[in-house]
Every structure is written in C-alpha cells, then in structure tokens.
C-alpha cells in the first residue's frame, strides 16, 4: 500500500467531520448572513398566505387601497364546489335549486347570500345553519394556505383583485425566507452594533492585559519559590482551567451575589447587602474580566513557567555571579526570554477571547442591561436565545460572519508569524 493511499485513508474520517462541522457551517454562515431566516420564516422555505394582521402593512408594500378592500371584504360566489359541499351538509334539493338560479353569481356581503338562501323554495331555516351554509361559498383568500406561488396566483386571480397588485401581494404572502442584504445594513445602522464592538474591544484588551501580566507574575514568582510552595500555588491556579465552567462561575456568583461572601463580610461593617456582580456595569465588567482573567492567567502561568524552565540555568547562575539581584535578573535575563511566549500568548488569546462568550453568558448574560454584551454573545442572543422568542438566524449569522472574517485574517497573519515553512518538511520515507 502506498503511503499516499494510506494517508488519505487515515485522514478521511477526520476530513469528513471537519468538512461537515467546520467547512459546511462556515459556508452556511456566509449563506445565512444574506437571508432573513428566523423562527417565523423557518429554514426549509415556506408557503403563501395573507392574514388579517398583515393588511395594515399592505399600503407600504405598494398595494392599492381598492385591492385591500377587496381582500378584506371579498366575497361569496356560487360555485360547483360550494354547491357540492352544500348538498353534502344540508340538502341536495337546496343545492340543486341554488345552482340552477344563481350559478356564478357573487355577493360582497354574507348577509346578501343569506337572504338568498332564506328566499329559496327549499330554504334553510335556522339562522345559524344559514350562516354556516353561506360560508361554504366564501371565496376570500384571507388566512388560506397555498403551498406554491402558482396556486396562490390562481387564487388571487379568482378574487378579481387588480392584477397590478399581484406581485406585491405574492411577496407579502410568502412566509419563507428570502435573500437580502438587510442584515449588514442593520449591523451598520444599529447603535447597539457599535456598543457591542466597543464592549468586545474593552473586554479583550482588559482580559488580555490581566492574563499576561498576572500570568507572568505567577510564573516568575513561583519560579523563585521552593518547589513545594510553588507547586501548591500552581495547583490552586490550575484548577479553574479544568473545572466545568458552570461550576467555576457558580463559585464566583456565590462570591459576589447579595447573599454571598463579599456581601456577608461587608455586612459586618454595616454595608447593606448588594449584588456585587450585577450592581452596575462597572461591577459586572470587573467580575467578567476577573472570571476570564483567572482562567487565562493560569494558561499564561503554565506557558511562561515552561518557558522560564527552558532558560539555561548556567545563564541564571552567570547573572548571579555577575552580581545581579533578583529584580535585575528578572528584568535583564528572564523577561527578554519571554518575548516569544508573550507574543504567542497575545495572539492566541486575542483570537479565543474575541469569540468566547461562555463565561459571560453564565455570569452576567450580557447584563446589566446590555452592559457586558460582547459581539459573540450578541450573535448567540440574536440567533439562538432571546426573550422575544423570534430567533433571527440571518442576522445572527451576519454577526458570526464578522467574527469568521476576523478569525481568518488573524490566523493567516499568525501563520506567517509562526514560521509555517517549518511544518512543511517532507516525510523522509518516500513510498
């Protein structure tokens, strides 16, 4: 077996899942971003129908008032189908007589038709029955469902509505999704967009700063501690990384909520209990940055620690022999060696912070108000979970698309940075 064939075989299961759950979703995100898909349009296409609620918006769609009136009031017509139904539900004689005398005639109001029904030789006597019988001849298309455009147009034609208005009505009546660029127009116009962008930038910069300075501090300080102490601190800081986010955030909630730790302690000094997480946006931001920062700092600590360990000890001894104190050693020996790990950490974390929202979702859910709503969370709220209940997949996809574009751009940049060529060393067995 050649390794070429073997390679494809080995790769294909991974390739299939990557195509199905990475490439296809990215492609679909692009597609969805140009549609108005939402809960109400469904995702599978739709049918045609006009309901009462839509009548008011019809003039905006360019439908003439006359046609609207026709839609609203139309109408009753004596037809074969109506007669057949009448014969079935009431009496064949009545139907036969009505058909003989009034075939094809229309009535704008039900009252008129009811009068006719009462006046027949074989009348329908009960008022309630007459109403029901008249309804059998209703020809209005209001509230009716048509599963194709053609059948909807046929129905429109039968109502006698001005043909000039048919196209506009078809558009209004369509319940499925359509292609549109409105999502991007909305993104540009909505004031909240700018807000989310600013929130995201603020969140990324603050968390990143915290992660890196604190990660560095932890790595360097534990480096100088005796092994046992250092390991204890490292363990304390590593745990948040692998604890389930739901639990980790719960611990923070307990720490900050009005029946939690801070409130209890401050309560001893007479401060009334308050929610230290959700009180104001400032509170919320502090907690959000700390929650993410503590997790990120642990990653920084691990990364930087292994980088410090990689510094040849002879270099450190040499600096000590040269009379450098601790601070100088950190400043002139260790920090310069950290340049590369810091760069890596910055780029890696920028990307993951830009798109992360799990901890914010669990902690503040974007609140108070929209105070801590970041871009990724806004995409989630728009498309997958909001109180209004109408999930706007199209608009959400447009939000996500922005992140996809930024992600691709950044990672292409990193590829150039991190010496991609090194990866391309050819396999040494050529068969």
């Amino acid at each position, binding site marked *: 077996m050649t390794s070429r064939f073997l390679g494809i075989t080995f790769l294909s299961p991974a390739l299939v899942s990557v195509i199905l759950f*990475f490439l296809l979703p990215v492609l679909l995100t692009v597609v969805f971003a140009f549609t108005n898909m939402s809960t109400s349009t469904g995702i599978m296409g739709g049918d045609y129908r006009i309901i009462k609620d839509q009548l008011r918006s019809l003039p905006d769609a360019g439908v003439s008032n006359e046609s609207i009136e026709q839609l609203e009031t139309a109408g009753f017509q004596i037809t074969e189908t109506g007669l057949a139904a009448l014969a079935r539900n009431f009496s064949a004689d009545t139907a036969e007589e009505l058909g003989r005398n009034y075939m094809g005639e229309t009535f704008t109001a039900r009252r008129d038709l009811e009068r006719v029904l009462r006046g027949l030789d074989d009348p329908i006597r009960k008022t309630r029955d007459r109403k029901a019988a008249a309804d059998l001849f209703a020809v209005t298309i209001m509230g009716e469902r048509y599963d194709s455009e053609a059948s909807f147009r046929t129905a429109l034609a039968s109502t006698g509505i001005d043909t000039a208005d048919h196209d506009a009505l078809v558009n209004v009546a369509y319940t499925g999704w359509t292609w549109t660029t409105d999502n991007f127009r909305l993104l540009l116009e909505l004031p909240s967009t700018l807000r989310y962008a600013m929130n995201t930038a603020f969140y990324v910069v603050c968390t990143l700063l915290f992660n890196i300075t604190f990660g560095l501090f932890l790595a360097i*300080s534990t480096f100088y501690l005796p092994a046992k102490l250092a390991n204890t601190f*490292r363990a304390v800081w590593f*745990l948040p990384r692998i604890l389930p986010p739901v*639990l980790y955030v719960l611990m923070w909630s307990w720490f900050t909520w009005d029946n939690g730790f801070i409130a*209890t302690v401050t309560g001893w000094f007479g401060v009334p209990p308050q929610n230290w997480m959700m009180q104001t946006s400032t509170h919320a931001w502090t907690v959000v940055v700390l929650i993410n920062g503590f997790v990120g700092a642990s990653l920084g600590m691990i990364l930087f620690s292994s980088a410090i360990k990689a510094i040849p000890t002879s270099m450190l001894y040499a600096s000590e022999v040269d009379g450098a104190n601790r601070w100088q050693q950190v400043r002139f020996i260790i920090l310069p060696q950290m340049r590369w790990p810091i760069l890596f950490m910055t780029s890696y974390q920028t990307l993951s912070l830009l798109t992360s929202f*799990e901890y914010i979702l669990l902690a503040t859910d974007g609140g108070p108000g929209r105070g801590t709503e970041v871009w*990724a969370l806004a995409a989630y709220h728009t498309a*997958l979970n909001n109180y209004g209940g109408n999930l706007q997949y199209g608009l959400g996809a447009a939000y996500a698309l922005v992140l996809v574009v930024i992600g691709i751009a950044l990672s292409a940049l990193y590829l150039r940075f991190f010496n991609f060529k090194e990866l391309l060393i050819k396999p040494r067995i050529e068969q």
Partner: protein
Amino acid sequence: MNTNSRIWHLVVILAIFSAPLLIMYVFQVMDSFTERRPDSLWPGELDLSNWRFLWEKIDSGRPSIWVVTFNTFVFATTTAVAVTSLSTMAGYALSRLNMPGRPYFLGGLIMLHAFPTITLIIAIFIILQFLGLFDSLLGIIFVKAALELPFGIWIMKGFYDTVPWEIEMAGVQDGASRVRVWWELVLPQVKPGLAALLIISFLSGWSEFVLPLVLAPGSSTQVLATYMNAVIQDDATADFGLFKAIGMFYSIPVIVIYLLFQKQLMNIYGGGTKG
C-alpha cells in the same frame, strides 16, 4: 534558588492574590455539607439535605440526576474516544505520510483554530435540524468530537513528530507494511499522547456547556452542565447549598483526574497549545 527572607514577601503577595480562589474552594466544599447561618462564615452543623438531589427529584419536571449523569458520561466518553481515535490516525497521516496536499492540510488545521464554537454554532444548529439530529445525544457527540478534532490532531501530530524516523525506517526495512509499522512500532511510542488526549477530551466533554444548551435543550438529553445551569436559573431563592452540592457531585471525576494526572495535564496544556 537559595532561601531568602524576601521569599516571604512573595508568598504573602501570592497568597493575597490567590485568596479569592482559595476562599471559593473552601466554601464550595464546606457549604455543600453544612448549614451555615447567612451572616456568618463559620460552618454550622453537618447537613446532608443539600445532597437530596441524589435520591429525589428536586422539583417536578426535572430528570433524575442519574439519567443526567449517565448522559454526561456517555457524551464525554464517546467524544473522547472518537476524538482520540480520529486524531491518532489523522495526526499520523499529517506527521509522517507522503501524500498530495499535505501542506494545505497542515495550514488548514491551523486555520481551523480560528473558528471557535460561536462562529459555527448557528449553522450547526440548522444543519442538525436538517439531519434530524437536533436535541439528540448523538448530534452533540458528533459536533463536539468534530470541534475538538483540530486540537487533537495537532497534539497527536506533535507526539508523532518526536518519534525518530529511523524506527519507522527500520520497520520498513524489516519488511513490515506502513500500517503495521504504525500499529506495532509507532503507536507504542505515542501512548503518553494517546492517554493525555483521551483525558483532555474527556474533561472537555464533561465540562461542555454551550453545545448541549443550544443543540440539545430537551430534558431527556440534559447533561450535568445544562442540568446544573437550569437548577440555578429556575431557583428564585439562590439556594447556594444545593447548587454547591450539585457542583461537587458534578466535579468529582474532574477532581479525581486532576489529582491523578496534575503534572501531565500541566505539561500538555503548556505545550499543547503551542503553534
């Protein structure tokens, strides 16, 4: 480094910064077992009522904790096994096999890191509905496994890269096919990688929250993360004792794995994210 009085300054500073975490850990454990007066920080009497969720439904309409735990276990183990086996094969192909388009696969692999959950999940939501896998464990297993793959492949490729080429060359010279060389000679060298990946992807599956929340919201497919979140969301009184007990229960496997493999885990998280 020689001991030094100034180390104690450092320890004190570190301890202050670590205090929030330490306090959280201590009270996390304590509060789940005891009843504490709201305005005091001293533990009260031993009280196991917080653990009632283990033997009764805490409120109607909520699935039994054992069903949820079983779901979580199935979800985490299947994704871990799937991720590990697929990554083991794909990583070998990318590390060692001469095949067309290898540079593009490698570049693509790095690019995939740029698409975390949120950028994909809206489309995946719709794909799963289309496939009829929405609100099923199988659906989120597929998705979670696929999303973990780039990381897994990267880790495994790294481990394969450290196996000397000569071992493979010797195997080929000894008359073994490439598949046999891989299975019998190379795989034993990357066992630590396999174990690490298995553990990490299990932990990741065990902790996963957003995917089940969005893609499997029904109560029959609830996992511990969504279960616990739902309990927290639905409880108006913020009964932290109950929450913490559930959290303790939820995190048992995590703590056990953490205690057993702490060092290896740190190494992987330290090195694995490189590149």
